[in-house]
């Protein structure tokens, strides 16, 4: 899905400041599934925590034991800044404009991945479902 020319404007059409676009998994990412989000340069993606009060980021939503890539036992979100080079790591800080969530966890989900970017102008979402995948889009003021 391509989402381009993204803007937030006030009642007279002036661009608004300090808003974030939030997107994420609206279904569940199970075995053999993934979702990838890509934003324009200058609007990197960061985790929009499921439960900030408890420190929970996204549970086991992106937990993939088959990749062989070291990741937290529960938070296995993978970030990519150069897919052609296969550059992957666990998302730990800002600066990534290309983020992928994969999973081999089929049952007992403990969270969902939600990402935010400050005032992006474009977002591309790629969904691969062994079953079905879904995503959402939201504005955080």
């Amino acid at each position, binding site marked *: 899905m*391509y989402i381009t020319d993204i803007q*937030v404007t006030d*009642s007279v059409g002036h661009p608004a400041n300090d808003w974030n676009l939030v997107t994420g998994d609206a279904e569940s990412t199970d075995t053999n599934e993934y979702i*990838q989000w890509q934003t324009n340069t200058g609007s990197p993606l960061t985790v929009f925590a499921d439960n900030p009060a408890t420190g929970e980021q996204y549970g086991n939503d992106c937990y993939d034991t088959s990749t062989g890539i070291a990741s937290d036992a529960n938070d296995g979100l993978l970030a990519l800044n150069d*897919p052609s080079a296969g550059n992957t790591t666990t998302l730990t800080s800002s600066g990534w404009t290309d983020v*992928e969530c994969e999973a081999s966890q089929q049952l*007992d989900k403990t969270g969902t991945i939600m990402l935010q970017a400050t005032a992006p102008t474009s977002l591309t979402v790629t969904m691969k479902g062994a079953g079905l995948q*879904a995503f959402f889009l939201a504005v*955080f003021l």
Partner: protein
Amino acid sequence: MRVGHSLHLHPVAAARKATRRRVEGGNEAGFTLIELIIVVAIMPIVVGGIAVALVSVLSLQGGVSNKLTNSNDAEVTSAAFNRDVQSAAVLTTETTPACGTGTQLLGLEWGANTSSPVGYDTVVSYNTVLTGSTYALVRQECTYVSGTTLTSPSTLTIAHDAGNTTQGPPQAPTIATNSGDVTPTNTWIQTQGITGVTFTINAPGTTEVGAPGTTVPGSGYSYTLVGLPTEASSSGAPPGQGSTPPDYQCGYATANALTYWAKSLCFVDFSFINTADGDQLENNGAFGTTGNPVPPSSPACQQVTEGITNTPYTLSFCISEAANNTVSNPKVGPVTPAIIPTYYDPGGDGSEAYLGNNGFYTGIPGDPSLYQWNAGLSSGGGTCPRCTSPTSR
């Protein structure tokens, strides 16, 4: 004749005469019975009068004292209340305090900060606290420190005498918009579009409390506070009343303990995609040499404008989907607007969608997701960067 005359003397005159005799002649015989009777009869009247006067004065003092206290309360409340309401970005009338203890009548938050566990730097609750038989209205403020920590509430009692157990506690404020009053008792709402927050404080009058005859002095002092959020005055047109009202509005989830961003996270309603008439947002998007999708060139996308509910702001974007059957993306599945949760598993094996189930962002209106139609297909183009093929994973 002297004796007879003496016998017929008027009692008062006789008393005067006896007194004169004592003064003039050094008579030490004491008071007459008549004098004593007169004194005994008059004294209670005099003492009773004095007592009534004293009670009245003391009672008046209590009332005046309460009036002065409440007048001062009104002044303090007015300053704090106006400042808070002007600053607020979101508010609620949920009874569970966002900050502090007691029963919340009004919750206010401002200073958006996604690092804060509540989404804002400052949280202010106007809570009622019952002490003995009297309700006080207190202002409690918590501010974000770091991580998931907010400061302990700082408390300012702004109305010492806001109600009692006989007359009842103070009530939540009235929250007005151009389209009528709103009662956000189960959620937080943006302050844009709110035209007034009116707090009415009715200090009770002298009231019988507890055992019959036991009264508590009260002033009966009442005052009304009206606050106007700054966001409302600076926002221009109220929600949905811009020059060209959007056809669709994004929506908020139902706020609860699991939904920390419900008051600020407005989900796009994808209902504008009419799949019934074949509108699947498909186009001929191309792909770059690295396998990444490249946004299609204009005008091959659908322009969307959605109002951000309870704010004067509008979100706009252009959306499209990659085409079927290209070399780089051989299996693209169409998507359809769908409700959240997209998948609910009553069997309870935990395979259901997390979003929209079990209290996590439930109650989002409209169709806030785009859902694949066909299992196993890729929507949006591109290949999995670390997959040998889209179907091998």
